[in-house]
């Protein structure tokens, strides 16, 4: 199926190019937008692999929620063209180390799968549902791993909330319950005035 392969290489090229742009462009908003583009092309590649559930969830979670918040913060911060590019030397050794480790892992995955594997997977039989298959695996074979991951996430959520949710003195809060219970008699006093302003 040559069309599928053309599409695959197209999205791969976009993915690699936009990922490079994320770290090279100066403007942080542009960098965040390139990150969105790279997530989106990764999702398209997963879609080609017939992993439609994972692809859609990637778009839903990362493109639809996480990156919106990213952009939100970056736009609010109003950082100009950043000085990160000039400080690239400081990060280079650590960056190279991480890149080397990741590259090695990728290489080993490809090595163990065998070099003869093809780009596009075999088409699945009619009626095969990727979504329900993932659900079945997560809730049967990998139940413990799945639940442990869920608990770790829950702990992280609670920790993040408790770290940011501190009581500062002098802040004012609204209590909607009390606001709703307000009666006119408590707030408004009708005063009869004569036209020259003297209270009667």
């Amino acid at each position, binding site marked *: 199926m040559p069309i599928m392969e053309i599409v695959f290489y197209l999205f791969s090229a976009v993915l690699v190019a936009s990922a490079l742009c994320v770290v090279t462009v100066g403007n942080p908003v542009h960098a965040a937008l390139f990150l969105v583009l790279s997530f989106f092309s990764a999702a398209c590649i997963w879609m080609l692999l017939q992993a439609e559930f994972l692809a859609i969830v990637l*778009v839903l979670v990362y493109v639809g*929620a996480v990156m*919106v918040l990213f*952009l939100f913060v970056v736009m609010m911060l109003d950082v100009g063209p950043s000085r990160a590019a000039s400080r690239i030397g400081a990060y280079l050794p650590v960056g190279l180390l991480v890149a080397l480790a990741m590259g090695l892992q990728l290489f080993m995955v490809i090595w163990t799968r065998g070099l003869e594997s093809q780009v596009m997977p075999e088409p699945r039989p009619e009626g095969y549902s990727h979504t329900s298959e993932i659900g079945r695996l997560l809730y049967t074979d990998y139940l413990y791993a799945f639940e442990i991951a869920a608990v770790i996430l829950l702990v992280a959520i609670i920790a993040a909330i408790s770290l940011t949710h501190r009581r500062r003195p002098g802040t004012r809060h609204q209590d909607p319950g009390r606001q709703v219970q307000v009666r006119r008699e408590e707030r408004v006093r009708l005063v009869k005035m004569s036209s020259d302003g003297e209270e009667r």
Partner: protein
Amino acid sequence: MIDAFLTLAWTVTKIMMIVFPITIAVAYFTYFERKVIGYMQVRRGPNRVGPLGLLQPFADVFKMLFKEIIIPTNANRFLFLLAPVLALAPALTAWAVIPFDDWLVLADIDAGILFVLALTSMGVYGILIGGWASNSKYALLGGLRSAAQTVSYEIAMGFALVGVIVLSGTLNLTGIVQAQSGSLLSWFWLPLLPLFVIYFISGVAETNRAPFDVAEGESEIVAGFHTEYSGSAFAVFFLAEYANMILISALAALLFLGGWLSPFQGVPVLGDTVLGAGGVHWFLLKTALFCFLYLWFRATFPRYRYDQIMRLGWKVFIPITIVWIMVAGVFRLLGWYGGA
């Protein structure tokens, strides 16, 4: 090779058969809006262009097209022009998985409901980028408001969809409608009544419509994210907003009011007549009902304050949806809805 091109041509034709009516529907939705709100406010609404003012939408479209697109100084030209397209594309793409009838759907994909949710969540980029690229305070504030609001209400909306998925047992939109087959009482509005209400209110908030239209609140931030837009670029934003409204209405009809199913299904006398059998007309009627609700809200409710919008989304809607997902699970366990 010829086959491939024929398939491509046929697919494009089918896409056109969806996109074209939606564009017309958007045009007449604006007319409908002005007429409905007009009569609610004891006015007549547009009645000069054509009989009963029916050609008014076209007059507006041509006016927009002939206007100049003004690009502010220091605006990011590329992103400024890309933003309306980014707003419109997801709004139209999501229609690919909407089933109009039992057999009438462009792409009958397995994870249809997730696809729609993912695409509606992407619509916010157009607004956010448009607000930022305009290089204007009001536009930026409008864009940020819209982003925060969309992300907040998406959670409540997603949880409301989980309730539907629990009862229907499928992510496929056609399957969800088929799971509601039976009668008026077996549609999901009854067992999922709180989720139904929350879904539609979240939908109104997602599309930035009154009473949640703080993203373009004219009394506070001029016109919000599209302050700097004019001409056809503004028209595209407008088209995206209304296409999204119709989409949310269509989804509410599909998920909670049984899509194309007839409310008189199973009534013996009506049988296979137009009233008894399901069909596109029922789907369109239900969608129109929700579209009308949008306008009714706009004519009735005052605008929410921004902190109240956030409180409603996070502290009221999300807890209710979480509780009701469990209630839906109990319904399923007891076998009242959705089979075994």
